[in-house]
């Protein structure tokens, strides 16, 4: 298996166009598990660690542009945690310090698991996914980027460059149900915001449907919102929990999150 290490975004895009079957590796926390257990054997790997354009974040006319190579540890730092508090809370629940030091939002989008913890907070904040290939650039709302369980809208020659958000500044929070506080794949998860400017309640759930789902309601429907979120989910029974438990947990989490954000 070949490993190619581009030093610039242009080089990365050119390599992917030449070798569409190659797999990107950023933090490797999903890809290496697959390689170690021989679950996949891609023709080649494209190591993104040396592509400086994917790292860090910048501010542009009030918007935040998060590089796809931002790690969970970086999302927890004060400047980003202040602007995107639910995303920082979600990042704190990911894996362990070792995983948060390596795992990235770009990788979470690449894997597009319904349990991906970065996804509900990004969805609540109406994130746009900025995509590039040798053919050019495009942007997709996250909801359109997530097309199915572990499936995203990327074409074989495309790469996620960044995620653009105009922080709402609203009260928001993230909650996750699992057997312990570290190293858990969510049984179900919830990001919620009370957006007074738009007059809207916004909630996104993880691990309770084929993709992360968004539910919105007018501010004055807070009382009915927990039931609405539970009803919008389409959970399944699996090793981590039953569909009925997940629906119940979402109702409870939504109630608690509302209490936190309306206080």
């Amino acid at each position, binding site marked *: 298996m070949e*490993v190619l290490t581009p030093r610039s975004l242009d080089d990365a895009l050119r390599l992917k166009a030449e070798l569409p079957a190659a797999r990107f590796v950023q933090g490797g926390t999903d890809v290496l*598990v697959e390689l170690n257990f021989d679950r996949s054997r891609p023709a080649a790997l494209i*190591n993104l660690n040396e592509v400086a354009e994917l790292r860090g974040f910048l501010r542009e006319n009030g918007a935040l542009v998060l590089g796809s190579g931002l790690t969970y540890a970086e999302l927890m730092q004060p400047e980003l945690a202040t602007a995107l508090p639910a995303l920082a809370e979600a990042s704190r629940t990911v894996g362990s*310090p070792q*995983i948060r030091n390596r795992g990235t939002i770009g990788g979470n989008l690449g894997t597009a698991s319904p349990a991906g913890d970065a996804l509900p907070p990004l969805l609540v904040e109406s994130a746009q996914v900025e995509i590039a290939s040798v053919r050019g650039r495009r942007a997709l709302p996250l909801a359109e980027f997530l097309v199915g369980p572990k499936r995203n809208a990327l074409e074989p020659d495309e790469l996620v460059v960044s995620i653009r958000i105009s922080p709402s500044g609203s009260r928001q929070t993230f909650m996750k149900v699992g057997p312990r506080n570290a*190293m858990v794949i969510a049984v179900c998860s919830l990001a919620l915001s009370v957006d007074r400017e738009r007059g809207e309640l916004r909630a996104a759930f993880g691990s309770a449907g084929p993709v992360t789902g968004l539910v919105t309601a007018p501010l004055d429907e807070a009382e009915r919102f927990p039931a609405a979120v539970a009803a919008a989910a389409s959970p399944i029974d699996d090793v981590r929990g039953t569909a009925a438990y997940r629906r119940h947990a979402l109702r409870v989490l939504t109630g608690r999150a509302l209490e936190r954000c309306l206080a």
Partner: protein
Amino acid sequence: MPRLRISLTINGEPRETDVWGGESLLYALRERLDLPGSKNACEQGECGSCSVLLDGVLVCSCLVLAAQADSHEVTTVEGLGAADDLHRVQEAFVAAGAVQCGFCTPGLVVATADLLERVPAPSDDEIREALSGNLCRCTGYQKIFDAVRLAAGIDA
């Protein structure tokens, strides 16, 4: 079937080796670079026994491609202290009786050294959080906590 040449700095020394593209840094350390201190228990990031510092950042070496470490700096448990010159964290693990089978110990020592570097006097919650990616089947963690407090010079 080694295919790729990598050069990196390990424990302060320049090293070179051939690796296969899909191989982890953990495998390269243990099988090619004669550094078996980092342990292989799960190969999926769950246990922390393979913990090393990559450019000073705590990572699971089983989840880093050997090829990704090319031109970078790695510190393994061997780089923290030698048998005749133990790191204060290693000394504390011995003194506190925090080692039973010892399989988790190298990872815990590296993770603890990393914690104390950033937070010299951690609270119990900070210790719990910092070591949440390191599993031990033997000790029940009490003695490990004692060792961390001892290394930090905190009275329990």
